[in-house]
């Protein structure tokens, strides 16, 4: 992604009579301006060496992180933590709360996030958007489709179900489609979700370690 701030201020600096940017500084500067961050890759060996479940979360064309499962609540909410203390809370693969992202979210009342009975899936939800702070009403619809082969980091699995969730904030004329791939045990293995109107889609791959 092009860093606009850099593209427009850097020439201004070069116009200056006393500008000075050393080579060692300039190379990463321009690299950062024109290249996207690298994708995170997990090998089977690395997966086998891990003692806790983890997710690989990556924004489209943006930074990614491996986040480790740090807590399983009685109500089925999983807490995932990154190396720099960002937190993602999921229930059945749906992100219901985040802390430390550029734009956080918190769903208010997440109890209905259960894929087992799509006909009872609530059609209205409240979401608390952060930066800037606003409370919004979401219209939600869910569509269940048959799954197909799903390529994850180092394996290909058969997804038994594919869920398409459409979320819409009427007031903002904003809508997004979230996709969930479930395995035959009903566990979400991969999802692409747009969490916030100001964030690009987030891809999450789930790697479960059962001790």
């Amino acid at each position, binding site marked *: 992604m092009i860093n606009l701030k850099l593209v427009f*201020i850097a020439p201004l600096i070069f*116009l200056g*009579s006393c500008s*000075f940017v050393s*080579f*060692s*500084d300039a190379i990463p500067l321009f690299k950062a301006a024109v290249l996207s961050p690298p994708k995170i890759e997990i090998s089977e060996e690395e997966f086998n060496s891990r003692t806790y479940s983890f997710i690989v979360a990556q924004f489209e064309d943006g930074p990614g992180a491996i986040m480790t499962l740090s807590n399983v609540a009685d109500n089925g909410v999983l807490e995932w933590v990154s190396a*720099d203390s960002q937190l993602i809370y999921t229930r059945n693969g749906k992100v219901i709360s985040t802390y430390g992202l550029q734009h956080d979210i918190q769903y208010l009342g997440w109890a209905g996030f259960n894929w087992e009975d799509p006909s009872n899936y609530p059609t209205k939800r*409240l979401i608390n958007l952060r930066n800037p702070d606003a409370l919004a009403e979401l219209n939600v619809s869910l569509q269940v489709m048959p799954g197909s082969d799903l390529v994850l980091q180092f394996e290909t699995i058969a997804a038994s179900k594919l869920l398409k969730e459409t979320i819409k904030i009427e007031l903002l004329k904003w809508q997004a489609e979230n996709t969930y791939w479930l395995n035959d045990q009903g566990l979400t293995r991969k999802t692409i979700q747009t969490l916030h109107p100001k964030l690009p889609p987030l891809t999450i791959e789930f790697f479960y370690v059962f001790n």
Partner: protein
Amino acid sequence: MKRYHPLRTALVLLLVFSNDIKSDINDYIYPSKSPSFGNFGGLGVIQNPSARFHDEGTLAFNWIQNGVYRRGSIVMYPFNWFEFSYQYTDIDNAQYSLIKEFSGGQSYKDKSFDAKAKIISEGRLMPEIAVGARDLAGTGIFGAEYVVANKRISNVDLSVGMGWGTLSGNKIKNPLASLSDSFDRRTGVGSSGTMGGDFNIGDFFSGETGLFAGAEIFIPNLNGSRVKIEYDGTNYEKEGFPLGRESFNLAFKPIRKPDSKFNIGFIYPLSDNFHLKASITKGNTFSFGFSFHAGVKGSNPKIKNTDKHEPVSNAEAFKKISKGNDTYIYRSILKHLNDRNLYLQKANIDNNVLEVQYAQDKYISYARATGRVARVLDEVVPDEIDTFKIANTNAGTNLNTITIDRQSFQLYESSKDHNSLRRNITISNPKYNPKNYKFVPDVEFPAFFWKAAPSVRSQIGGPDGFYFGDLSLAIHAEILFKYNLSLVTSGAIGIVDNFDELKLASDSILPHVRTDIVKYLKQSRKGHFKRIQLNWFHRPTKNIYTKLSAGIFEPMFGGYGFESLYRPFNSTFAIGLEYWNVKQRDYDQMFKFIDYETETGHINIFYEEPYSQLLFRLKGGRFLAGDSGINFDLSRRFKSGLRIGAFFSKTDISKEEFGEGSFDKGFYFYLPIEFFFDSHTKGIAGFGLRPLTRDGAQFLVHSHHLYGITDQANSYNIERNWDDIYD
């Protein structure tokens, strides 16, 4: 009977009872609320100015093509109540000169300053009110003064104002004329008797007066786009060269007259900072452009996550091993500080107090550097040590010592409570005896440092062409013979330039101390030495710093001299003295000199206001061309390290002797380059501009100014970033 809606009820209850949720969905409906630029330098509707301001520490660039005018402006906000812009306007209905050999076919270029100040901030009922002036100290062809008020109502930002000069298109009686008859008359362009570049204050708010109005209407859910409508206040009979040759002998065609008083425009923000714009002005002219602004007053927020303190691995093991053995402690801290670009210079352990003296070239914030040192010490030093005395050094001199109670440092670390920590810390500047330190790392003198960098020299806005520049490979080297004796060298090998067409010769009647710039640029294009300067630093008493220097100081002068500075640690005042005996360098910028030789020297007075971080610098003495007088420089520093400033000089030469521009003036900003990076770096990129560089009021440019070197020998400069101590 009304139906019960549990979701709506929950929403209402949440809004009523939750203090935490400040719900404003409008921030999403109108995602870009930052004010937008007009067709002139500053924020405005289309042709009319507005009373809006960006936040302090914002830098902006605004470019517009509007009929015969093509205008590029650099805009700065040293305060959130003050806007300053400098622009070049390319005027297509006039030539730069009548002499083709002098300026080719170049169109007329106009340079101007605009300024605007907020008088009243917007309240619930009160509008925001500002007063401003266009084309200050320029030729005056866009000269205008105005008072303008803005009020935001829902998604509409309304503005209404009164203008003078070129903003007097919709005429009313000048209300100030009732105060004095002098407000009735405006002498106008070219009649002030100035050489251009002078402030024609007598004309301000005088003569014809007019009203203007406009509105910026924010469109919902369209990425912050706005429609702008205005009742144009421009007096097109006065702006630029409206009648062609009848208005100005260099103009060759008249400007299209307006068909309408109403202008309409559209702004599309690619982001909150970058706006594309288009408009129809005068009912017959299409204009378009873009603007970009960036707030750079605070630290780069990205670095907080990408360049954190790296904890020492196996720190507990180091603690155990070095327990009771001072040499092991010293070796441990030497390694772990050096690994983090914090260079240990000396250390001593006495009575549970660990004293370290270090140097660093990574962190702009002195508190952050000290905090990083303290964290390493806390991690690896045995628990018996209860106090850290951390001294920072530069040019072989201790500049400050921060004494940290270790227990307090640990206590407030998790909460990053820097305020509570501050109560248990002393900041001082004792003069140390280096012999008091038991541990001194081996340094082999002479030590050699160098780096290579691309370098650009620019010459903007001359008659030969708008832009001339070169790109060269610059080598910067420093040899340390002792901690306080160094040779600073800077040279460059030319890569590419467009100097062939640059031929403007100096017309100055003063010694050509600066105006032979064309000769210097052209004859040094293959390679040159910018500087070969030997410096010796000494601190004879606690508050006095001195420097002796000799060699090639700058592209045009070399010689010898000294600088001395009295700077008490807890004072906002400093006073310095400098004397230089210099000879002018040959134009090839190698080792030869030409005949001109002079003595120059100044008394420098500094006052830094700690709350606003305003630095006043007054320089009085004899300048390079032999003229005597003062140079006044006012600048503001922000937390990020950004400095925005402006200066002017007055010396004992007449306006005629000075030449075009009447007196020396200009502005500058220094931007920390870490703003663009993922890690901390101390580098600064500077941008400075004088509308015209003449020979009067020019002073020697030498490296390692004492006021800069001793920046951290002042308690206020450490306190200003104290909240970085745990960063």
